[in-house]
């Protein structure tokens, strides 16, 4: 699935791609199709109320809220595991919480 988001007034492609999984839950990778660098420290601060910060590395972060696990890479990639129901729409809904922590994010177009 390809969507568009608005970031600092600019429309950017967002791809949502399903990954190998067994059937009960879905796993999805969401990529912002533009060179972007996340401030992981800032994001972790904003997300820590809702998620357990499992790993915080300079290049990636893994956060959890049972059963969901979200990996965020500094270069604009987000992976969400155990999406239920297994649909890209649900993955996008979960991803919104992450996207909202990006300075300049104005929403899905």
């Amino acid at each position, binding site marked *: 699935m390809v969507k568009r988001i608005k970031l600092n007034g600019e429309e950017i492609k967002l791809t949502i791609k399903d990954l*190998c*999984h*067994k059937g009960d839950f879905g*796993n999805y990778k969401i990529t912002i199709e533009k060179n972007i660098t996340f401030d992981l420290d800032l994001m972790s601060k904003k997300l820590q109320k809702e998620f357990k910060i499992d790993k915080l*590395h300079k290049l*990636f972060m*893994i956060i959890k809220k049972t059963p969901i696990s979200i990996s965020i*890479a500094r270069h604009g*990639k987000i992976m969400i*595991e155990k999406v239920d129901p297994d649909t890209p729409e649900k993955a996008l809904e979960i991803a919104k919480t992450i996207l909202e922590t990006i300075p300049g994010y104005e929403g899905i177009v």
Partner: protein
Amino acid sequence: MDIEKIRNDFKILDKGVIYLDSAATSLTPDCVVNAVIGYYNDYNANIERGVYSFSQEASKEYEEAHQKVAHFLGASEEEIVFTKNCTYGINLVANALKFKKGDNIVTTLLEHHSNYLPWLRLRDRYGVEVKRIKPSKEGFFNLKDFKEAIDSNTKIVAVTHVSNCLGTIIPVFEISEIAHKNNALFLVDGAQSAPHFSINLKELGCDFFSCSGHKMLGPTGTGVLYIKKELWDKIEPFEIGGGMIKSVDIDDFTTADGWEKFEAGTPNIAGGIGLGAAVEYLNKIDMKNIEEYERKLTIKMMEGMKKIKNLIILGPDDPEKRTGVIPFKVPNMSPHEIAFVLDEVANIAIRSGLHCCHPLHNSVLNEPDGTARASLYFYNSEEEVDIFIQTLKEVM
């Protein structure tokens, strides 16, 4: 083997990727890319049809590609059918054989879905029984289980040569003897063997051997199906039309002999020619050298991984009994998380998940989320293995 020189043949490696997913598809050397471009730029035409020189040239190159692959696998040219992938070859066989109620098919729980689902569908279509032999957690079989399962009603036995999940090498010759003693046909899924060690189909004891061209340096959309000469008359192509006939009249037709019978319509000409260039390249390096080098790399990688606390390697411990397919798990990180993080931190490409082997992961390994899987090929370097180990330590 001069690894630096070999690595220079793969332009994509300039991008700095550490590619450890060759079990899914291999990288493509310049000679293969050039062979494909050469077809399009120099003599683009359909094969076996035209009198003009481009068509003659294309036909010659495409036929020669069959010869090269035949030589590479120890078969004769007519026995080598070009397919679009390994899956297609297995489906071709499953759909070409005639089954009746009471027949049975013997396969295993180690199989890739491509060598599993085509047989299950025959069960649903014709009411044949599908017997499934269970491997150990390392992917080994007890030959006694095959002896018990295969009987005079067994039509075909279909087994993988190397597990794409565990790397285990299966002694297919021994299984072929049991199959043939019972007059059953024997199919080998060679997707993970043909790229990594020397194969002689005359000695392997199989009737059918299907493998992927794209896992052995060929272009995507290429595969190979070996059909033993003695069986040509017994199996019907499930696709018919142009390019595969000897004669046609208003009511009837007779099929061509050899591979042409099974390649209806315009084939992937450029891909086939590219595959010919791929096996020529592999032959030049020599499969014995490739096998030896990959074993050395596999040992290095396994030794490095074993030193990482809490990391678990699946599959055989003995490097003589496996290829460079190395599945592993680490505590508190899912297989996808490991793959995601390795990509981000060091541009390392590995596979994660169930590797198209759900029955194995659910019924044998008890790993419902699958594994992370690094898979090596001869263009990987020792330095890449060091970086992989180092990065794993850093991110765990």
